């Protein structure tokens, strides 16, 4: 565990020096604004139809509850695309990975360390921004209509604080594996973009179609699936594969 943390900490510090993190936070702010617009459209529609305060509260709760499931995951995945540009990609481009593998650290420790280096800051920034966005939405736009703070379900909070970090970690381990063994590791980052787009458009589509889904259950299913895949991959990872896919 020690070496995993040593590797992760070094990569996190290196990645946090990047300005792109702060640019991405601004983009997340802009994305939040699109959700606010959707919420306002929903409320205006209800008000035009002469909906009661109770109906407006229920609609607000339903909207915000979905947000509480989706935003932490979506933002964390979004931030992953920055942090995943460091650690493995840079180490392979500069061929530092070779020196790292020649130390007593095992390849699995390197793999997990690099995965943590992407997961931890992504989850902290992603969930942090999602919580702030939730609070801002509540105070700025929801409370004027509902006259009280709308809390999400407990399962949404559990999902945001426990399931999402685990889910991000297992997805990242798979992406980092791919980065380690292919010669153009940036391609692996497309996984994050695809997941992000699915969440972005999928969640909107579900809301538009009025379909209710159990996000917590879906997240758990994906965690189990990705964990099995990740375990399988761990058995096929060799230093030689990493070395031969590095430049030079």
């Amino acid at each position, binding site marked *: 565990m020690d070496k995993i943390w040593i590797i992760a900490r070094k990569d996190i510090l290196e990645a946090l020096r990047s300005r792109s993190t702060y640019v991405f936070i601004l983009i997340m702010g802009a994305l939040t604004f699109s959700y606010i617009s959707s919420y306002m459209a929903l409320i205006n529609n209800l008000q035009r139809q002469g909906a009661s305060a109770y109906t407006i509260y229920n609609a607000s709760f339903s909207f915000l509850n979905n947000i509480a499931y989706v935003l932490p995951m979506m933002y964390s995945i979004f931030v992953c695309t920055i942090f995943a540009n460091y650690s493995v990609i840079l180490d392979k481009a500069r061929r*530092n990975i070779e020196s790292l593998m020649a130390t007593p650290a095992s390849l699995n420790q390197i793999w997990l360390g690099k995965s943590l280096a992407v997961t931890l800051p992504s989850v902290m920034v992603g969930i942090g921004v999602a919580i702030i966005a939730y609070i801002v939405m509540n105070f700025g736009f929801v409370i004027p209509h509902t006259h009280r703070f709308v809390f999400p379900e407990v399962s949404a909070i559990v999902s945001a604080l426990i399931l999402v970090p685990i889910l991000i970690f297992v997805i990242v381990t798979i992406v980092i594996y791919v980065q380690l063994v292919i010669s153009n590791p940036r391609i692996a980052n497309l996984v994050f973009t695809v997941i992000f787009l699915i969440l972005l458009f999928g969640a909107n589509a579900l809301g538009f179609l009025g379909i209710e889904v159990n996000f917590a259950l879906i997240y758990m299913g994906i965690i189990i699936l990705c964990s099995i895949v990740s375990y399988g991959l761990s058995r096929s990872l060799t230093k030689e594969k990493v070395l031969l896919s590095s430049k030079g």
Partner: protein
Amino acid sequence: MPDIINLEHVFKRIGRREILKDVNLTVKQGDIFGYLGPNGAGKTTTIRIILGLMGVTSGRVTVLGQDTRINKVRRKIGFVLETDGLYDNMSGYDNLAYYAQLYDIPQPRVKAEKAVRLVELADRAKDKVGTYSKGMRQRLALARAIIPDPDVLVLDEPTSGVDPSGQIEIRQIMLNMINNEGKTILLSSHNLDEVQRICNRIALINKGQIRLSGELEKLQHDMSRGAIMIQTTEPVSDLILTEMKNQPGVSVRYQNERALNLVIGKEVGVPHLVNLLVSRGVGIEQVIKQEASLEEIYTTIVKEAEQ
């Protein structure tokens, strides 16, 4: 002396390419072992195998009697690879501390401080490595290699791209490691002069095969057999030179105005050649038995392999 690095009948194939063919290599305790060969000969692959970065297709590799794919064994191996593996955005000191932690060294910062002093980088240790010269980077990489106090150092071209004064400093550090600390060094290098200066044993690899291996002095002695230089009082005419070349077992390696550099076989003795020259009116100043330089050995072996 016990074997520190041992490769027995090692074959390595990557895809369809056979990189190493039946490589046998032994580095003994206290050796500075020079590993030579042209580009693409298989030196780096050998080093990667020794460091456990690559497996072998067949054969056996041990370092300190153990398989280097075992993580614990690598605690006893220091290394400098072709690319230095240093992080540009971190200070020299932080780079060393980072690697020291990966070797489970207690008080990694104290050890890092000692190491930067040893390679005379203490005054630049807090600067980012990105600002270092090539020589400074190589010295820092060497400091990283010695941080875990390893029993064996595997160095892949540690003086490559380093200016002459930097090369001298790095050589001195290597010699100190051997003389004062009893380490063993495997040194892969293109710098024949460097290898000749500091190595006691060498191996020459070409096209994946070890062509020559052993004690450097003995190899030089063996390869010099029959090499002589005859210094004359006046230039040797082409006619006499042709006559010399026609003697059985004699080949002229080169000649300048008043010196003939020859290799002679068992068929003919030095007195016979001297008499021949004297009888043709050529005065002899002196006859010198020549010792083959490492460069001559290298060139001969590589050329033989090419043919």
